[in-house]
């Protein structure tokens, strides 16, 4: 069954070769047009001085790729301009110890990437830093954003082309990457659970010591009060 399918696969390969002759220019034109305006699907609006932060809780040695595209509201046409030069976004990335990993200014379209060295909550902040403030009279900026983490950052067709893998090998490679991601996440989970347990135990200890200390303070102050007042009243000859 395997060899039969292989032959059919090769036959369809050849047939595709023929069709490709005609559709190559069409495909090229489509691709070219689509390349000019890559669309990252999800977008949101941001104000002029507003800073938008996103949190990514990731294990260590994980790659994160972020891509964004900005569009400015044009009051005259009443719509968003396709692209505006001079519009920039400042990207800041902080690691779980609030240390700045990346702090860079990008243009109206940008791509940033980093690899985490400590597991935990990383913060990705964006705020606009436009050179011409007059552009912002409308007040709205549309930001398309896409953040891919871990195995989603892998570009499988590129890997296939580079390592010359067959389809099955590529699928297995994808499964291996996924399993590696799951393993890393579970490792991180173990580390987090340990932290949680330490916090809970510390709370438990604090409550225990505090209740003992409070009882002790109460008893000591009670005794001191009684003794002090007794000596005071004796001195005053009231007792």
């Amino acid at each position, binding site marked *: 069954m395997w060899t039969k399918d292989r032959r059919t696969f090769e036959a369809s390969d050849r047939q595709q070769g023929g069709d490709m002759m005609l559709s190559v220019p069409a495909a090229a034109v489509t691709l070219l047009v689509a390349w000019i305006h890559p669309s990252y699907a999800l977008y949101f609006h941001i104000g002029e001085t507003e800073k938008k932060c996103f949190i990514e*809780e990731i294990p260590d040695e994980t790659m994160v790729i972020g891509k964004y595209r900005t569009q400015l509201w044009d009051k005259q046409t009443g719509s968003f301009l396709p692209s505006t030069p001079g519009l920039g976004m400042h990207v800041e990335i902080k690691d779980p110890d609030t240390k700045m990993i990346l702090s860079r200014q990008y243009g109206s379209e940008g791509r940033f990437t980093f690899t985490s060295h400590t597991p935990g909550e990383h913060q990705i902040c964006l705020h606009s830093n436009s050179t011409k403030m007059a552009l912002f009279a409308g007040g709205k900026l549309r930001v398309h954003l896409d953040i891919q983490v871990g195995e989603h950052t892998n570009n499988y067709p590129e890997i296939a082309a580079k390592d010359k893998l067959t389809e099955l090998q590529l699928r297995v490679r994808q499964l291996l990457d996924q399993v590696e991601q799951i393993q890393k996440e579970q490792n991180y989970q173990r580390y987090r659970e340990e932290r949680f347990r330490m916090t809970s135990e510390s709370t438990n200890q604090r409550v225990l010591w505090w209740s003992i200390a409070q009882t002790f303070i109460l008893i000591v102050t009670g005794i001191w009060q009684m003794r002090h007042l007794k000596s005071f009243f004796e001195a005053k000859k009231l007792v």
Partner: protein
Amino acid sequence: MFRSLRLLLQVLWAQLLCGWVLGSELTFELPDNAKQCFYEDIIVGTKCTLEFQVVTGGHYDVDCRLEDPDSTTLYKEMKKQYDSFTFTAAKNGTYKFCFSNEFSTFTHKTVYFDFQVGDDPPLFPNENRVTALTQMESACVSIHEALKSVIDYQTHFRLREAQGRSRAEDLNTRVAFWSIGEAIILLVVSISQVVLLRSFFSDKKTTMTRILGFFSDLCDGKLSALTLGDIPCPFGPTSFFQARLTAAAVARRHGRGGFLLFGPQKQNIEPVKRRGNMTSEGNRADEGEEDTPAAEFRSDDQ
């Protein structure tokens, strides 16, 4: 030649596909009284899923609303902690979903959402295949789907654990502050109880009783009037010496005007040094015997 051209096209197409996002998950912070909206352009017939979960903040709930291009509400839930909604796009256009924290006055919320549009991009770009998948390939596909759901469960577990952990850390800091605060309050209250009790039984002149004594002496006097600048004082101390002390002290306290001492029959006893505007702390060096501040003034019956 066709092969290389096809390879080039495949790589280009792959690059393009990687620019096409077909699913986004983000975690963001929603301040109090704020609303955050996200938009996505969807083609008709695409199956989409929106999942959200509140990670930290308050009662861990948020309002969520999903609208289609004609502003018809497809999904609306108030104060939900976690939910998942699947729909098929009936129209072409921009779909909008919003998270609102407007019901909360001072808690920031961290919200995670995962918006999947359509299926994953195919591994190989030339997916106009005429043959069915082999057994190996279909096994790979099913393992891939199973692992995707494992990763999804892991994400939700991580979020729930983050919730629990943030609550535990809050509890820890609150217990620390409260125990220190209560110990301090306990000590302060017990000491002040003893001090207050002692003061009830004691007739020694403390600062408080001295100040009280000063004013009562002012009112027990025999001199009729002692005017200082704009301040008429219809009472006076019992002796001349005390009167001078009082006048000097009160003038110093009020920091203005000079003083003239008058006896009970309004006779001018002693045109004591007319002072100009004095500050309350100043001119103390000038006064020989009058350098006792008002609080130290002792009454006659001691």
